[in-house]
């Protein structure tokens, strides 16, 4: 297994091509749930979990259904349906077997069934790893790593942002810039800072 490439994918998707700050995926939860640290953390956990799960599921759909029957053009349709229904299934499962856990992040699961970051990671996986006829375990490992690390990067940025916004509550912001506009400006400064990672070469 080429560990070097795996590491490169992981670092790239966490820092350099961060889903929120440089790919602009999942902005709705980023702006919506980043007001306080605790919900932001649970949201991040839920997204990481769903991204990893949907990476595995869409890998299976693509390599066992779409490619053998040459119906790759149905990718959008099938991915969305499979992701949405399996997240619902997982949600019901958690609700039934672990109500305490469901109370903590069940609502977030419902919110992200068709989040663009989740669907985006599936599409990116299929463009990067699944299109090339490769051996199956190798592409599965790459998909899972990319899905998991995209979630980790998402959680990290969400946490950082919520920390800043908790402080921002106490600041004297011009009235018309309050709320969303100032959040975007903060995000812009953060994204500028993250551009520093672009210099790294592996």
């Amino acid at each position: 297994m080429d560990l070097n490439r795996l590491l490169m994918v992981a670092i790239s998707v966490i820092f350099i091509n961060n889903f929120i700050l440089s790919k602009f995926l999942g902005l709705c939860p980023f702006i919506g749930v980043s007001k306080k640290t605790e919900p932001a953390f649970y949201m991040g956990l839920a997204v990481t979990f769903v991204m990893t799960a949907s990476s595995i599921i869409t890998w299976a759909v693509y390599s066992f259904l779409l490619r053998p029957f040459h119906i790759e053009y149905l990718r959008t349709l099938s991915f969305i349906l499979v992701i949405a229904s399996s997240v619902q299934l997982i949600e019901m499962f958690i609700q039934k077997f672990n109500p305490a856990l469901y109370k903590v992040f069940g609502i977030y699961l419902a919110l992200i069934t068709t989040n663009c970051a989740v669907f985006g990671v599936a599409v990116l996986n299929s463009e990067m790893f699944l299109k090339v006829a490769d051996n199956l375990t190798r592409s599965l490992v790459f998909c899972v790593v990319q899905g998991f690390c995209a979630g980790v990067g998402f959680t990290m940025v969400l946490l950082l942002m919520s920390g800043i916004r908790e402080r921002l509550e106490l600041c004297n912001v011009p009235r018309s810039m309050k709320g969303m506009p100032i959040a975007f400006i903060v995000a812009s400064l953060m994204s500028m800072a993250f551009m520093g990672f672009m210099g790294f070469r592996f």
Partner: protein
Amino acid sequence: MKRLLREFLKGITIENPTFRLALGLCPTLAISTSIVNGFGMGLAATFVIVGSNMIVSSIRGVIPSKIRIPSFIVIIATFVTIVELVMKAYFPSLSKALGIFVPLIAVNCIVLGRAEAFASKHGVVRSIFDGLGMGVGFTFALVLISTIREAFGNGTLLGLIIVKGFEPALLFILAPGALLVIGILMGFINHVTER
């Protein structure tokens, strides 16, 4: 006729999806690097919104309310697939520039939002006008943002150089510029409407 016109205009002004409702921000920020990209994305999204609004409103009596969301998603994803294939065949360079954001129209909250909030409750003609208004409003916002970003970040408008000797600030084309522009625009709109 007057009511239809109002349905159409509200998407552009008081219920503008980008600036007023803050929906569908991901594609707005990601692909507004040049006017051509912004306009192409806007047209594609308009087609999907109008198409899905039309189908959803015409079969709204048949869909059981429990499974309405999954059925809306299937309808939307079908239109997105049409756009994806047409764009790949006739506008390959645009399709390459927009990248994964073409399939991502399917999870754009504007489309599902209109299907759920408007088309599932109103008639076919009104839904089509609502979709048109929303699409045009979205396209307008995209073109506005991408004009600012292209002018400052690349020194051009539609690829033509505006002022000779102007040193473009590359930052505006990159990711931070998008967030900065939309933050300032939203603040400006708040400032104007508050008075």
